[in-house]
């Protein structure tokens, strides 16, 4: 079993307590060691220590302003962390542009606001990066894109523009766009928060399928049912700190921290 070896000794052992049963013997996919981030004097993240094992689904919950989004945006350098180390698939994030590009190439991200390219068709949205970054031919990239659109169940929308799609369809296209780069890790930043209620499930279903297929996922969400049913571990954050990490079972039935208990009692 793969108990984390704390090289710097600063990591809180409880953070990794449950990762052991999930890790499959490899190095972790994502490792955050003592990560802090400041916006001026405001500490957005304070001493975050987290490991995400390969094929693990980690769900991050917490009140708004707790630093959940900031944390996962640090993983692919949409935000810059000020203190600590972030290692993704063995590559350490630094100011080196090549490292940043390498990490972004194998990390997909799905945004709250979809952020599809409105001037391109669905198909072009999906094939743009594979063609420009992976050097795929248009034909190969489009074949792959159609496959992915089948998988998210909207192949008939391939030639429309994002503005002609519903929110749920747009978010599924955004997932397909990320998958087209064949990422090893997927980051979801509140993927269902901007959706009308009746469209949330179609997106969660796609995410659940993805988790079943063994994708490593870090999901910031307020969907507690998704956390309960799909997560391998749940992280609770508040005020820029990781308060508690545990299995969904532990988390939803018997949380140990008072702050977690207070939060869960408010939302459940």
């Amino acid at each position, binding site marked *: 079993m793969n108990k984390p070896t704390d090289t710097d000794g600063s990591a809180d052992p409880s953070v990794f307590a449950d990762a052991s049963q999930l890790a499959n013997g490899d190095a972790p996919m994502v490792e955050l060691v003592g990560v802090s981030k400041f916006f001026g004097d405001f500490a957005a993240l304070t001493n975050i220590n987290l490991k995400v094992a390969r094929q693990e689904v980690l769900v991050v919950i917490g009140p708004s302003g707790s630093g959940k989004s900031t944390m996962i945006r640090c993983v692919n*350098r949409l935000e810059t962390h000020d203190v600590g180390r972030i290692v993704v698939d063995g590559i350490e994030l630094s100011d080196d542009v090549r490292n940043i590009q390498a990490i972004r190439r194998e990390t997909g991200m799905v945004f709250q606001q979809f952020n599809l390219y409105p001037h391109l068709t669905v198909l072009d949205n999906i094939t743009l990066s594979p063609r420009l970054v992976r050097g795929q031919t248009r034909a190969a990239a489009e074949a792959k894109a159609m496959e992915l659109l089948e998988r998210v169940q909207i192949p008939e929308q391939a030639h429309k*523009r994002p503005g002609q799609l519903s929110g749920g369809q747009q978010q599924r296209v955004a997932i397909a766009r990320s998958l087209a780069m064949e990422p090893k890790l997927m980051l979801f930043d509140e993927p269902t928060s901007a959706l009308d209620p009746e469209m949330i499930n179609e997106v969660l279903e796609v995410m659940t399928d993805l988790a079943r297929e063994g994708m490593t996922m870090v999901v910031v969400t307020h969907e507690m049912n998704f956390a309960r049913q799909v997560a391998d571990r749940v992280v609770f954050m508040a005020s820029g700190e990781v308060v508690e990490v545990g299995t969904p079972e532990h988390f939803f039935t018997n949380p140990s921290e008072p702050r977690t208990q207070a939060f869960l009692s408010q939302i459940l």
Partner: protein
Amino acid sequence: MTDTAPTAADQPTDPPLWSPSPSGSVSTWLKKNLFRSRLDGVVTVVAGTIILIAGFRFLRFVFVTGRWQIVRENLSLYLTGSWPEEHLWRLVVVVVGLALIAGFIGGFSAGRIDDDPSRAVSLAGRDRLVDLGSRLWPLVVTVALLLALTTTIGPLLVAAGAIVAAVAGNMAGRAVPGGMSAVPVVVGVLFLTLAGIWLLNAGLSWNSWGGMVLNLSLATISIALCFPIGVLLALARRSEYPILRWLSTGYIELFRGVPLIGLLLMANVALGFFIPNSLAPGKVVRAIVIFVLFTSAYIAEIVRGGLQSVPPGQIEAGKANGLTPIPIITRIVLPQAIRNVIPALVGQFISLFKDTTLAGAAMGLTDLLGGAEASTAQADFRGQGLIAETLVFVLLIFWAGSYTMSRESQRLETKLGVGER
């Protein structure tokens, strides 16, 4: 007038406002739009009187009192300046060639849009002709007027040749297979344009260009050059690299802060202070340089506004998707930014087109306006107060060009779906 009320009563499914009788709808329309209240009625009567008087006086000037002989006799001066007759064929070749290229581009893009199932289908046959007519009528009317004013058969033949070339180019453009990349087409068009400039220039220096041809050439060449430069300046002004930012900001603020005519005068007179006269380029080149320097500063600010209108999430999506900075700019940010500022850009281009008359005034070139002024000093027409006739003609030409640009830009906006996300 037939009473439509029973019909409407017999067919209650008809919408009540949808009257089948046109005369009935005219009176209803008048009542609804022009005489809704007492105040509306007063405004309608006053405005209508002014419009009628102005329209009557204008039409009387055009068809009765105007003495158009001066325009008739100086048509070639207005259109081509003092272009030597033995070189006129160069101009004809270029005009026909331009028509061919324009037709080809139109056909090529229409063919590609037909192939793209996400776009609206284009019109067919007769509808296309109607569409083209409704789009280009200011140009068509102006060309027809020019042809009516000519005294020889030559211009008619040129016009006919241009139409044939445009149609042929259009058909050729449509015949290009849809999957083909646009790159060879762009390269080909650029090459042909350069060839056209060379053809005009060989055996005839820039400096003998004149008339409307000069205004059009100054405008098209300057627009083609100032647009990419303006985009680069806008990007530089938003760059994270401070020296680029300072240079770009300084450039923009300098050229936006000085009057264009001052720059043109300087290029005409004061260039000798900076460059030995033997090295200084000809006047037309100087004018183009000044127009490009000046207008690119404005274009830069317009494009910068467009860049700011693109949500930051677009750039983040590109980054997260593994794209490097250059494709993020060229494939994601710029297409959206420029699409959002098409009206302002075209406004700037129209302004440049009209400002080309300043080159005539400030640099002593005989452009369309200069030719018009010169013609009133000819022995046959001197002292007869013909400046109104010549100016109306000049303004018509500029209006036709500007209005066409404006309409085409509106069409482009609709086509690209500006305002829809």
